[in-house]
């Protein structure tokens, strides 16, 4: 994970796994609300950006695939 780069799917899985010490393989594709709050917090910490989500973003972040897309968009726009 490099602060200057956009996060990959692997990076997002690693951040989600950090919530409760799971392995990356044990992270489910569906993301629930507490995991989402954790993920947004971790992205802010690791990438130094403020992640402001509108409802459209939020609706797309219910899966890991969607979350990776949105996070890359939001970080890209913030830079």
């Amino acid at each position, binding site marked *: 994970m490099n602060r200057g780069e956009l996060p990959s799917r692997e990076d997002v899985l690693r951040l989600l796994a950090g919530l409760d010490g799971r392995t990356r393989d044990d992270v489910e594709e569906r993301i*629930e609300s*507490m995991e989402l*709050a*954790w993920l947004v*917090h971790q992205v*802010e*910490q690791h990438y130094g950006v*403020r992640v402001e989500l509108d409802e459209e973003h939020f609706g797309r972040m219910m899966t890991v695939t969607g979350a990776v897309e949105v996070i890359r968009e939001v970080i890209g726009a913030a830079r």
Partner: protein
Amino acid sequence: MTTDMTKIELGAVVGPDWVDELLLRGPDDDICLDVDGPVTRAALRAMVAQRQERLAAAGLGAGGSLALRLPPSLAYVANLLAGWRLGAQVVLLDHRLTQFEVDAALDRLAVQVVVSAGRVRSGALRAFADVEDVVTARAGRPAATPHAVIQLSSGSTGPSKVIGRTAADLIAELDRYTRMDGVPLPGERIIVLASMVHVLGLVGALLYGLHAGVRVQPPQRLTGDSVLEAVAADPSPATVLGVPFHIGLLASVVDPPQLPQLKRMTTGGELQPPAVVTAFTEKYGVPLGNMWGMTEVGVIATDLFGEHRPSLRPAFGLAVVERGGELLVSRPESPYVGLSDPDRWADGWLHTRDAGTVDPHTGLVTIKGRLDSQISIGGLKVDLTEVEETLGGLPGVEAAVVVHDSMVTAYVQLAEPATVAQVEAGLAERLAAYKRPRRVHALAAMPRTTTGKLVRDRSVLRDASREER
């Protein structure tokens, strides 16, 4: 602003007086809430009066029944206090419940007026929402009991338990908070991360804050940076009140700023691993307090200086005893509405369903875990039996077992042509997202004991699922 609660006549607590006297009283320009900007007591009183008119126009009156299905928001606070000022009973429904769950609760409780969220004007992940509150009258009945607040717990047998608390009981809890060493003091702030729809955020932050003259301030968002920004927003001392998940948020903030006004963090809920506690206290250098409570009682015991961890001291006026390995707490009347079960409450003692011990010399209480199938997901209580019964009631499900195996995990035996996707869709209609299994495994045949009972051993279920892949 604090009133001597021993002087409040019990007869006065059913009308609007207790709300005015214990919660809303204070100088007009006193800032009691800070939600995207300061809210003075005069402004809050005006909001409450306006909501009261709307609720009365919808037919709500003294002894009536009102349900709030709102996320934590100013609209929630104003409608709650307005309902109480009208002398109505207020049912609190978590806004994350599904329509199916809400309809079941409203029908069961025969609520007369419902306030729900219309247009949500704030972004996602906001700690306090900016919502339009929509009032709807229903063909319900007046309150059947004298309780001021009704909450539903995730039920271990059949439907949810209905938990009622009178105004006098809420006042007694406020009194416990007021007498505690280590709670925020008048002129200070509570940065509230716990939901105000549930007992910790409701009484520990909102009601105590209004009563004691402690400014209640949710952060803009529930992220570590946002919580620290809320602390830094004012020089007055600040206590952060949340659930264990929030300790992890703050403990993982990279290079937090110096915050001399941060006084303490207090959480309710399950105990945290020592490593997380150490990470937090080393990073911030302030006490990490711990509280034990339940919806039926509110706060029961505390360790607000983190000096007795993992033990806690019972709060003023409450007795805690251990019987047969279970902790019981004194409660003069049963909190359960329409339920008479001596295994839950009898002779002034409430069964907490928490295993634990009470030190005979110090009186300190140590919690050892749950005795039933209740677990905590981010501070929200989920009873696995409720999840399992809902799952078992879906079409095409022949047998189901739900366990907590680092996450809520379901194993099902399906009748053709049912699929896991259909089962998940059925659950999504009937159960709030936080209650739903993260994983649903279909097995050709559920593991059973020699007498035909479903096996609940997690490793056996895991192996059965692995073998079928």
